């Protein structure tokens, strides 16, 4: 079985500060992989290296079968990304945002219209499809970001805290969409601070101070630490850390 994400001894430093310290992770195709860690543990930095926004200091990483340093354009064609911070255009409408990214990823006009409409109705955003994004509540914007990240049916999608600041009903919807994506064969690499969500992942890793402190299925991790929830595993590992890049 091929790997969707293959990370070996990946390190990223900012001056003297080591944000990501020689991590190694393998993610199987079609897996929902939870990438956990306290604030400042280095999750976002690691993701930015994997999606080609940051150069690694050392080590290697392959995403969707391509090297993130030497074959970054090949990687970019095959990944979707939803950042922690809303990063679509506030001064465009949801439909305009979808059209823009559809066009950039080379979808045909027909595909853009069909997929766009399907997504908007699935997300319950049809009635605001032609309103400016700036007028939408946060949860709706997050749903829009997710659908734009999935628009070109990427092999791997990176979701950086997709459910931050979102109500419980929408969070549930999110996880349904995540499972649906995984069922279609998309590998999902997701970070979260909600430990109940962590239980939904096929496998997960917990990052502490730039290192991966534990990795495995939720059940295996709970057994390893002799506790009844991922929450307790997390608290055991992730003691308060010094602030740094998130």
């Amino acid at each position, binding site marked *: 079985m091929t790997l969707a994400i293959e990370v070996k001894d990946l390190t990223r430093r900012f001056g003297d500060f080591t944000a990501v310290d020689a991590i190694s992770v393998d993610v199987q195709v079609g897996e929902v992989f939870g990438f956990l860690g306290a604030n400042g543990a280095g999750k976002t930095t690691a993701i930015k290296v994997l999606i080609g926004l940051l*150069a690694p200091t050392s080590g290697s990483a392959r995403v969707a079968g391509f090297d993130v340093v030497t074959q970054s354009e090949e990687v*970019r064609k095959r990944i979707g990304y939803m*950042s922690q911070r809303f990063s679509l255009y506030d001064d465009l409408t949801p439909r305009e945002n979808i059209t823009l990214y559809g*066009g*950039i990823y080379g979808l045909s006009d027909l595909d853009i219209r069909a997929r766009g409409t399907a997504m908007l109705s699935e997300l319950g955003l049809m009635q605001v499809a032609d309103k400016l994004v700036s007028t939408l509540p946060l949860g709706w914007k997050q749903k829009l970001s997710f659908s734009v990240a999935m628009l070109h049916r990427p092999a791997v999608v990176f979701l950086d805290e997709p459910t931050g600041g979102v109500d419980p009903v929408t969070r549930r919807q999110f996880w349904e969409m995540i499972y649906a994506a995984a069922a279609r064969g998309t590998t999902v690499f997701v970070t979260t601070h909600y430990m109940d969500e962590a239980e939904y992942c096929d496998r997960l890793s917990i990052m502490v101070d730039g290192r991966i402190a534990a990795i495995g299925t939720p059940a295996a991790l709970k057994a390893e630490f002799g506790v009844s929830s991922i929450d307790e595993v997390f608290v055991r590992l992730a003691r308060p850390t010094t602030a740094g890049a998130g």
Partner: protein
Amino acid sequence: MRALRFLLRKEFLQIFRDPALVRMLFMIPVVQLLVLSNAATFEVKRARMYVVDQDASTMSRSVVDRLAASGRFARAASSGSVPLGDEALMRREVELIVVIPAGFERAIVREHRAEVQLQLNAEDGAAAAVTQAYAREILVRYATDLSAQLTPALSLAGARVERPPMRGHPAVQVRTRGWYNAELDYRHYMVPGILVQLLTIVGTLLTAMNIVREKEAGTLDQLNVTPVTKSVFIAAKLIPLWVISMVVLSIGLVVAKVAFGVPMRGSLFLVFGGAALYLVAALGIGLWVSAVTETQQQAMFVNFSFLMVYLLMSGLFTPISAMPEWAQWVARFNPMMHYISLMRAVMLKGAGFVDVARQLAVLASAGVVVLTIAVRQYHKRSA
């Protein structure tokens, strides 16, 4: 290329959805053109003169009358004493002293030549030069008229300029009045240059802010994880403001014609062709600034520094030929200087393609260089 179409649509939508931006783009250059073109002039409306007529003859009086009748000079005071005139000049009651020595008329009649002395306050060198040029012109014309009356030909020695009463420039450079601006209207000369400067200020400011604003908003990260190429991205940022700048240029040219009567003696096509090349270079610099800075504040500051050099070394306010050697070298790399000179040549002189081919070539290469740098220095992945 398909991606470019979508990115362009997005840029245009964003620009036209911001009413304040649209107003800024189209109104500021036009309003400033109207206001600044009236303000930015080297013309000296009326210089006050102190007349020292030591000849007190018909001819000496007619020299003074000629000067006064031109409207450029007003007789403020007179006496027979040069030192009194010097004092008036020193107190800044007058801008110049006209000294007609005794024996002036006799010299003209007998020797067919005579001297008139002008003393100018050259603290403001540019104004003094213009005043002197006016006076010289009037005197030369007077001499020509006289020689028509008196045969054989007569020459009236031109103005001699003395040191200013305060410390100042030892010599005043004579600005020769051009053939191609026979109406002596400085606005014809200034308007095209001011228009180019306004276009450049507005255009580079918006391009300089553009990419960096997306960096600050976080929207750039989302674009950078897509397979969009760097050159398509830069093109998508350049083209909308390039198109808008061309439209603003057209409006500006209409204003120049209607409000200031600036002639268009050459081909309009050349003016626009030059602009097309020039704007690539000018807006490209804005994009480069935007690509290498991290915040709008930085972009603003860097861009402002560039603009200062641009404007002051464009030859609009100070002639390039008057600059020291090293500054002339710097000015040679200023695309604005080349475009302003092209525009003036085409509009005022009716210069053709061959006459401005050199400027066109410089502008085209500047565009290529600047865009190459902008694309190369824009990174999808930070180091």
